[in-house]
């Protein structure tokens, strides 16, 4: 039985303190309920894992194609090529390269998160069995799989080239990625509908520019001494991201709240 319905019935029963339940009437009610249930048309419905797999075709294919292209870039940038031979880049530029690449990884989600509102599919999707919060979570999950893979491959490849430890490589990837994700989520929730994609893209490019400026003007932030600060900021951004996703899902359940959200 539906959990909400069960708890409402239990609450209603508790409020009837002087109610005497007849076992015979209870059995009759149970029999009648079963008959009523069985007389309704049986509707076979797929479970969530089957739904998730079917969404791969609609959401996964295009976003994974984009992420696949980035994966090739990762191999080119951090893997097969000697990084010293790439233009004027040198191994000491790896931290800022990792940061910029992480921002581009986050950007792969921009075309896909706000699609429902952009293409006026929101109302139709909201009225279906799956519900918008679950659909949004599915999209985030599918995009997230690709992002996690990209981050992992970049980390592994860069760790073999880096002059600093694996921990630092992880931080140089994670913090810009999390900041980009938090920024895009905030923009998705509050920016004017129709401009979210543009503003998110502009924000991410600004972030990469900021990383370069930081590297040029204050290169010491990329040193080991600042690692605890990077770690703390990563943790803070991760918490903000989780709260942001939770609020986005919560807002998306009703049309008047969700018009910007998705």
């Amino acid at each position, binding site marked *: 039985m539906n959990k909400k319905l069960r708890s409402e019935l239990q609450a209603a029963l508790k409020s009837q303190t002087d109610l005497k339940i007849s076992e015979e009437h209870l059995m009759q009610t149970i029999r009648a309920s079963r008959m009523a249930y069985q007389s309704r048309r049986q509707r076979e419905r*797929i479970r969530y894992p089957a*739904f998730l797999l079917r969404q791969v075709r*609609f959401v996964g294919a295009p976003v994974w194609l984009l992420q696949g292209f980035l994966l090739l870039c990762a191999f080119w940038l951090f893997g097969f090529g000697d990084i010293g031979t790439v233009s004027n880049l040198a191994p000491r530029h790896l931290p800022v390269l990792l940061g910029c690449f992480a921002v581009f990884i986050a950007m792969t989600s921009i075309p896909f998160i706000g699609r429902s509102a952009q*293409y006026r*599919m929101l109302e*139709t999707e909201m*009225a279906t069995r799956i519900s918008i919060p679950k659909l949004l979570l599915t999209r985030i999950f599918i995009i997230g799989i690709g992002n996690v893979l990209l981050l992992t491959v970049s980390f592994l490849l860069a760790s073999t080239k880096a002059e600093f430890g694996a921990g630092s490589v992880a931080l140089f990837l994670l913090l810009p990625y999390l900041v980009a994700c938090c920024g895009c989520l905030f923009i998705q929730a509050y920016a004017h509908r129709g401009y979210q994609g543009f503003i998110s893209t502009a924000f991410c490019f600004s972030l990469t520019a900021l990383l370069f400026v930081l590297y040029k003007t204050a290169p010491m932030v990329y040193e080991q001494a600042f690692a605890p600060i990077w770690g703390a900021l990563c943790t803070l951004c991760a918490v903000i991201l989780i709260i942001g996703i939770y609020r986005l899902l919560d807002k998306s359940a*009703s049309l008047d709240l969700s018009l910007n959200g998705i």
Partner: protein
Amino acid sequence: MELTIQELTKRYKDKTAVNNVSLTLTPGVWGLLGANGAGKTTLMRMVAGILTPTSGKVQYDGIEIKTLGEAYRDVFGYLPQNFGFYPEFTVTDYLQYMASLKGLPKKDTNLKIDELLHQLTLADVRSKHIRKLSGGMQRRVGIAQALLNDPDILILDEPTSGLDPGERIRFRNILSEFAQQRIVLISTHIVSDVEYIANRNAIMKDGKIIAVDTTDELVKMMDGKVWQGTIPAEQLHHYERTVRVVSVRNEDGGNVSVRYVAENSSLPNSQATAPRLEDLYLWLFRGEEAVKEDVV
């Protein structure tokens, strides 16, 4: 099967879109008539469960739809007034996508899609991109998605907008067949759409339901208020300022035949004539024109 709307209200900062509406929907076709801004779409969105009411509730067979959750959306089909498509979708892609959102098993989906495409004469365009179809065809694709899960409750907001008369007749026939043992709620400006298929109609004005009855009983309200008179064409302009003109037809000899609604006969040689639902619409919504569609 019963869908009960109880004292439903939706208030925004500057306006009350739906004001304490109560209605009980039983199996059959229900028409929801009203002018622009009457609150029809807001009401339908609340019944669809996608808009949170300020107060009141919607119950399906005695249980609030909020409590039913997925179970309600399972038996529900909805076509919004303004809907779109992802640009890369063909007709089949879109229906398969919607079928997956409705949780339909894959083996049933293809059969159902074929059936609906034939019923709505979309079989020839199944592989075409939706953005390349005409407005009427896009509307039929929208109707198809609403019917995918064989719903017990079907809510259609302006479903025939953009359809030509032949398509509207076909649509009416599909709906009439579908509505046996099901609840169908159609909101429309096109009075003739509900006049021929709706068992009962609810008329909405300024966020409130002002009348609920069968088409015949509603039309009876206009007994003695609908007139037909013939006047010289040059006098039409004068009378248009004094009576509510329903239709004008050119006659021989420079005259025009005027159908109008008024408490009493206002044109010379007028005769009372049998009222239609369209006359009631014009009588109730004096500031609005009903969409006059040819009766086919």
